[in-house]
């Protein structure tokens, strides 16, 4: 037999109800205690970077969608920002606003999935469905705008593909109105449930230093008590025009940076995003959205690293252009890719059940990890 030692190796995934896709975790157990976790990734390696080298700049956008398919809008956002900076394009006001609105809606949608699946991992299935119910409304907003539910190819270099749908503003207002109470409901049902807190609070607390050294970003970093959000600290687009809070983990229910913090940060971020959207749809100016779209996208030779605060953290595009129509090299700094790498450290000394909780709280998207 392969294993005569006292350790047991337990496979989680690639097919596993709660590995959020095709991640494979190799757990080394002693009793039910984890002595080591080895993530095996690449089951969804779709060769994005190779494709990017074979495409023209606009054609890459559909592929960026497919990396983090839960936050497609934001991937496009980041990519087009990079290319625009490379080419020095100024986009119209309206476009900026549209992008921000879309981005924040996407953030809410993505967090909803994260929270829902997290609930399902912990064993509460109902919140999962409530979250998806609310998410459907956001998807509808996207759908009326660009016709797709999940992968939009909406934000283009220098603009957006089409202007907002006439009803968009009204529907968004309605959505915000009916979504606020649902957040409270979610809290009643899940966030403050004693069992849920027992399961998540104090579990796998991630210290500031470790987080930074591992390059953790986004909600996970903030949960560890670092007030670091690119929308404020390295502001891009027009985020500096809105006022909103950056929720930071404070260890209300346990240690700072434990699973519960990571969870609740997302809940609060949704509220903040709602604020941003509200302000944006108040201020949004008129104007043409496709005027700045260049006929031929042909940036000068050079390299650039541009990053945005995607729902999962810092999404960076490192683009090298050789002055031709195709990018010479695109390297994506995927937040989940980096966040997942801390998994091994976090899980040590916890139990199988906790692995699920920890993984869910890190909130990964495999499409983005494997690209």
């Amino acid at each position, binding site marked *: 037999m392969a294993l005569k030692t006292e350790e*047991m190796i*337990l496979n989680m995934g690639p097919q*596993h*109800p*709660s590995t959020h896709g095709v991640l494979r975790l190799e757990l080394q157990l002693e009793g*039910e205690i984890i002595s080591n976790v080895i993530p095996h990734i690449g089951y969804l390696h779709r060769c994005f970077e190779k494709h990017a080298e074979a495409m023209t700049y606009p054609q890459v956008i559909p592929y960026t969608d497919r990396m983090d398919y839960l936050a497609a809008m934001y991937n496009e956002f980041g990519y087009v920002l990079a290319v625009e900076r490379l080419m020095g394009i100024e986009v119209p006001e309206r476009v900026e606003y549209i992008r921000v609105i879309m981005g924040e809606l996407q953030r809410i949608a993505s967090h909803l999935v994260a929270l829902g699946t997290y*609930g*399902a*991992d*912990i*064993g*509460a*299935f*109902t919140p999962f*469905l*409530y979250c998806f*119910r609310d998410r459907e409304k956001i998807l509808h907003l996207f759908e009326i705008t660009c016709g797709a539910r999940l992968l939009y190819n909406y934000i283009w270099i220098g603009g957006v593909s089409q202007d907002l749908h006439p009803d968009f503003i009204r529907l968004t207002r309605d959505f915000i109105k009916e979504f606020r109470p649902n957040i409270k409901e979610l809290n009643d*049902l*899940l966030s403050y*449930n004693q*069992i*849920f807190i*027992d*399961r998540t609070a104090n579990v796998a607390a991630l210290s500031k230093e470790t987080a930074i050294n591992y390059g953790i970003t986004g909600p996970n970093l903030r949960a560890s008590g670092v007030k670091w959000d690119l929308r404020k600290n390295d502001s891009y687009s027009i985020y500096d025009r809105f006022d909103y809070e950056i929720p930071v983990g404070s260890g209300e229910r346990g240690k700072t940076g434990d699973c519960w913090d990571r969870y609740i940060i997302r809940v609060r971020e949704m509220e903040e995003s709602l604020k941003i959207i509200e302000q944006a749809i108040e201020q949004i100016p008129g104007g043409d959205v496709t005027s700045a779209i260049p006929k031929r996208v042909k940036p000068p030779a050079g390299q650039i690293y541009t990053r945005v605060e995607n729902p999962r953290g810092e999404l960076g595009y490192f683009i090298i252009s050789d002055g031709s129509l195709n990018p010479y090299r695109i390297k994506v700094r995927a937040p989940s890719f980096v966040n997942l790498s801390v998994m091994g450290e976090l899980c040590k000394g916890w*139990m*199988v*059940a*906790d*692995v*699920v909780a920890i993984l869910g709280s890190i909130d990964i998207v495999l499409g983005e990890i494997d690209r």
Partner: protein
Amino acid sequence: MIYDWLTEFTGSEIIAAFIQGWLPLLFFILPFVLVAVLAERKVSAHMQDRLGPMRVGYHGILQTIADLIKLLQKEDIIASANDKKLFNFAPVLVFVGSYAAFAAIPFSGAFIGSQIELGLLYIVAVTGLVVAGILMAGWASNNKYSLLGAMRAAAQIISYEIPTLLIILTVIMITGTVNLYTLSEMQTSYFWNWMIFGGPEFGLQKFLLIPLMMMGFLVIFISMLAEVNRTPFDIPEAESELVSGFHTEYSGMKFAMFFLAEYANMFAVSAIIAVLFFGGFQSPFGYLGNSLGWEWLVPFEQFFWFTVKGLFFIFVQMWLRWTLPRFRVDQLMAFCWKYMIPFAFVILIIAGLITVL
């Protein structure tokens, strides 16, 4: 008594007993499970703003039947690494263990499988079979998830058996009987005679007992939940960790057996709770039959009330399941040893004191 009637009818006790043995199986358990599974799906669906099965028959009433027939046709896989004998035997053991409990459950004044004197203890005893069966299944599957799940299930069931036993002991002390039939007979006529309201005989004692009984009910209900592995105690089948616990490797009809056993268990525990605290088959307020003078009606009413009570507790179980997250295994154990057992203990001591004063 159906039994006597059957005896005259068939002329032989054995045959009568056999028929009686099959009665609850065919005319209660199977239909009940079919309904309960559907109900579970419907209840969960409506709690989640869904509809649940809709297309198989009117509002999906035939869904579970379809499931059953489908399971009949599913290939039955015995992985080459399995211990075939035990693997095949485990479902039998589990089902028998959970079904045998029904022998002592008084469905109504007229129908009770066997008025065995030690009914309560007997039911506790046969659950031991289930534990053994689960361990067997888990071990025979030769699969990590199954084995872990089985160990968890066994540990969980046995530890929660203690509070259950203690509370049962309390009830025994107060009522002075272990016979489920007499137990239900005692709490007759009106609902304030139910144990939850301090039992039949009046006086100071009754009112002292009420809070204890409430507490006791809470404890035993939680423990029973744990014994049938329902959320929040469904760690053995925690599908987000151990794929589906000790029946991961089972397919087709054998899996169906586990399924049947689970739901049979659900009803069994609900029935026990109903008998212990809610007057078993007694109606909360007099009988139509008596008031109308139709004696024959009474047993049916009793049966009706019994089923209603059972179903109510099953509904509560479902309700909990679709509301709550799941404990972690160590928290589960801690909960048992640090909350349930001490509580049961205190209840037991105080109740004894009250009864002798």
